[in-house]
């Protein structure tokens, strides 16, 4: 997939930007037209890549959005979660993470899967319990404290 593309979806007073493709050095702020919207949601499910140049551009893009605009992140993939955990500026006071994907491992067949987690379901940095079809509990396939670190950042910014 090539450069960043998006589709918009309106849900009441909220506009959802479904992002797809890459956020890299070719991404420019003006590529996403916000048109004075006051409630925005970025859906990262189909975003395939973000590199260091892309991160820099994305942070500049966020800085340019007025602080009274409410932003939500939904369906953040592990690559976005990693950036949120380590890069300052990826989360801002007007940004709230609604949902994200978390890696799980099934010891019975040694498969790795991503499961959508709602931020509100996280308590005390414990991953939600996910079971396979046989009803067996899956292992959370990351360091919970480190993986959910962005939730702490979100509270502090």
């Amino acid at each position: 997939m090539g450069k960043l593309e998006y589709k918009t979806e309106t849900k009441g007073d909220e506009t959802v930007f479904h992002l797809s493709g890459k956020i890299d050095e070719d991404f420019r702020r003006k590529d996403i037209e916000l048109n004075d919207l006051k409630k925005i949601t970025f859906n990262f499910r189909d975003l395939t890549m973000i590199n260091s140049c892309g991160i820099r551009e994305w942070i500049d893009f966020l800085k340019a959005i007025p602080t009274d605009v409410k932003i939500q992140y939904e369906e953040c993939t592990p690559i976005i979660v990693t950036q949120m955990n380590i890069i300052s500026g990826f989360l801002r006071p007007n940004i709230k993470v609604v949902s994200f994907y978390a890696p799980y491992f099934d010891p019975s067949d040694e498969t790795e899967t991503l499961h959508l987690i709602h931020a509100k379901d996280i308590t005390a940095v414990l991953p939600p319990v996910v079971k396979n079809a046989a009803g067996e509990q899956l292992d959370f396939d990351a360091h919970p404290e480190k993986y959910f670190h962005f939730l702490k950042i979100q509270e502090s910014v």
Partner: protein
Amino acid sequence: MNLNGEQILEFIPEPALVINDAGIVVAANEFFLSQYGVKRRLFLNTKLPIEELICFENIDDVHLEDEAFKETTFTVFPSAITGSCLLGRRKIDDQYLLVLKDNSVEVQLHDKYQKQLDELAEYSKGLEEKVKIRTRELSESNQYISGMLDSLNQAILVLNAEGMCLPHHTTNCASIFKTPPNGKSFWDIIEYPEDEQPFLRRWISHLIKEKINFDDIADLGPKIVIKNGTHIELKYFPLRSEKLKAEGVVVVARDITRIVELEEDLHTTEEFEKVLTKVATNLFIYRSAIEEQERSLKKLLAETVVDENKFKKILHRLKGSYSLFSMHALEKMTHQVEDLEHCEMPTWKSAFIILSEETKALHAKLANSLSLPPTISHIWVDQQKIKTIAKKVPRPYSDELLAIATMALTDYINSFSVFVDELCTQLNKKNHSFVVQGPDLPADYQVIRSLQPILTLYLRNVVDHGFWNEEEKNNSISIIFNRVNKRLNISITDTGRGLRPKTEQTSNLISGRGLGMQIIKEQLKDINGFHEQTFTDNGCVLSMEMDWPEEEN
């Protein structure tokens, strides 16, 4: 200092991992795991050799301690992520710390940048080549255009609003204007009179302002200049900008000296042909005219003392004779000699000599063209001789012979109608009728000799001063003659405004000096004649009476 190794590993802001002496992965920071999609469980509970986790293409042995970071490409097997990094290796105790300073993005950007630079270089090269080709084409076109313009035999230069010549001009300028025009003013180039230069300045400035149509203003400029004997024709065109505004004046100059010379030659030839035609169709009168001219010139050349009045009368008569055969060059020359005043005899003499030589030359040329015998007397039919022969042969042969020998007086006088018509054309007047009436009389040689200067001079006066200029007014001449006993009566009536002696007359090439009537009087006196002139509101009548030569038996 007791530092937690795992915390230090996490703090390293690059993907990092630790292997032991045997090459087994011992630890990795979160950066490494999340960046390359590696699960901690892969090495946490099992022995994972480094070769099964990651492969560095340019590194032979990860255990070698190396002070410097070494650039290499790599592949992480569990996630199949490939990239490029600067790999740093450091042995700490019995373990090795590997730090991958990932520069995949830089490498990608560098490659991308390099590719774009290469494309740009290629494009620039192509562009340079195109510019080179276009420049060559443009230069060739310029050469062709310059060559074409230079071969036109025209000088083309451009003037600015101040009348200065711009550097762009054809090479012919130097040869046509006899000076290189670069940086000079137009008036200097064409050597325009100093007192008229301000006009030229204003004219050029108005041409460019174009408040009035360019062509209309251009028409006011100098059209032909003569410089060092070269006739230069000038034409003007606007040099327009993209917005069609006149920004300069293009001057196209042409050397027309040869054309002027040819036109003069042609004019001379045409004039000669006119004379030739007249002579060829009026040989009879020509002889009389040539005799008249020879006689007059002989008289002038024999003079030793200045007598202006006498000279002018002879010259006037001579001029009339020249005009009878449209010998305009000689007519003009005579007119100029007539204008001489208060001159010494040598001046007059030299003028008479020139006139005589030119007259002789013209007659020689005419004789040559018409294949006439060298002596003019051969043209004239000896009337007496024919009459004598005619008496010896019976009729009707005798009548035929007499008809050859003589011309009717009516026909002779009628031949002056062509002369009158030509004078009218010269003066832009119209001759409505020329009527001759009289009995059947022969045009006797003696009579013609006397009549020719009289008719020539008088008819010139009538046309010049008597005839109306106005188209609607009638200009006509009626000549009536009769022989009573041994006298010939001739009356010339015209319907002009009347040749009143007090009428103010202006001297010109044709008449106006007041000599004509004096000459007529003297001429008539020679043949025992007289004249009377009467003026009416409807014109003028000249009545003459003179001897008719005695006929031989």
